[in-house]
């Protein structure tokens, strides 16, 4: 049935945009795209909403269905992942609205490396001291930030998105995203100071 998308190896070679072109001819190719993003999307949902794994999977299923139905609405000028994250973001917020709950950022504890990227210093001498910062304190500091700052910190550091991608996901101008990230870093540094960690939040 499927000559192009049947093999995982074939999938890996192709870009998102190429796969989208193939999906229109053969819907099975959509599996390739979903497999590529499902873990990331579930993790993202959990991070921005703090829902259980099962709920995150349910939301992710809706997201992938929505993406499939609206595939022709995808703007090729955007990165597919930005569009997907945008839908994921909206769907997750909608889920919380439907359930009358306020979305709460939930930085998961398996993000050691990403979390450590948030805090670093230009001076090597102090690096050792900085590494002693526990994730617990950092997560606490992030959770004390405003939601708008949490969002950009999460996307920038934990999801590794560029300013342009964040702008596309949050539908905000790039300048605004830059300002939000800078303010978020500043506020995070203040929060860390309050928590007894005299750190400088690095420019990424």
């Amino acid at each position: 049935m499927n000559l192009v998308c049947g093999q995982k190896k074939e999938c890996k070679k192709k870009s998102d945009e190429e796969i989208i072109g193939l999906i229109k001819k053969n819907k099975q190719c959509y599996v390739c795209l979903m497999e590529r993003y499902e873990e990331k999307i579930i993790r993202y949902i959990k991070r921005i909403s703090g829902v259980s794994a099962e709920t995150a999977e349910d939301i992710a299923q809706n997201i992938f269905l929505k993406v499939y139905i609206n595939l022709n609405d995808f703007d090729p000028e955007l990165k597919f992942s930005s569009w997907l994250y945008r839908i994921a973001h909206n769907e997750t917020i909608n889920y919380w609205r439907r359930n009358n709950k306020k979305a709460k950022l939930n930085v998961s504890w398996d993000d050691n490396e990403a979390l450590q990227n948030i805090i670093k210093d230009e001076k090597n001498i102090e690096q050792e001291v900085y590494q002693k910062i526990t994730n617990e304190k950092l997560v606490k500091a992030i959770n004390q930030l405003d939601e708008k700052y949490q969002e950009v910190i999460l996307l920038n550091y934990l999801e590794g998105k560029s300013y342009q991608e964040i702008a596309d996901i949050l539908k905000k101008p790039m300048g605004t995203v830059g300002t939000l990230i800078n303010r978020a870093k500043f506020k995070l540094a203040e929060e860390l100071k309050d928590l007894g960690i005299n750190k400088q939040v690095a420019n990424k």
Partner: protein
Amino acid sequence: MKKNISQTVFEKIDRDKITIRPKRYFVFCSIFWLFLGGLFFFLDSVLLSLCFYFSDKLKPMWVFINNPLALIPILIFFFFLLVIGSVLFVAFLYRKSRICCRHEDWMLWGSIVLGIFFLSFFAYSLGVFENTIFVKKGEELVNVKKYWSKPSFGTLSGKIDSIYFESKKMILRDWSGREWVVQVDGDLLRGRTYQQGEEIKIIGEKIAEETFFAKKVWSWR
């Protein structure tokens, strides 16, 4: 063994025969939303223009009547309409601005709002909407004549029946056909000419039953 999400979603797509929406669906949607946006833009401009128009009609009252607070209901009506229109327009922009630009662009939004303001101001200045259904319906809704026909409140309006320059009086027939003796300040009579049959609006004071003292007089139009 637990299925992964991609398998589950694909099975659902296959089982329920879910298809990708055709491109023309999104083209039609975009056209629809742009049309709706244009419509809101036009209606908001008309509405703001009417606000200018009716505010101008009622302007003398703000300054001269004894109790300007009594005008609050009518002002609230204006603002209510304008706020509703603006909220709808902004909601449209918020939801569908992606059609026009890639991001929520405050510069674009600001330009559109300023555009509405200037367009409506020019439309009002040029009298574009006067003698149109918008003004006629607006007058019915706002009932400007009603606001200018509250003698106890300090306003009176209607058509001049006759003028007596010697006794500084005029007989005014209000919109309901009731006759009023209007005592006019001598300075007012010297300042301009009045004609029989002219429609006027007056700010003043009710001094007796069907007798009114005029402090300021304007032509109705």
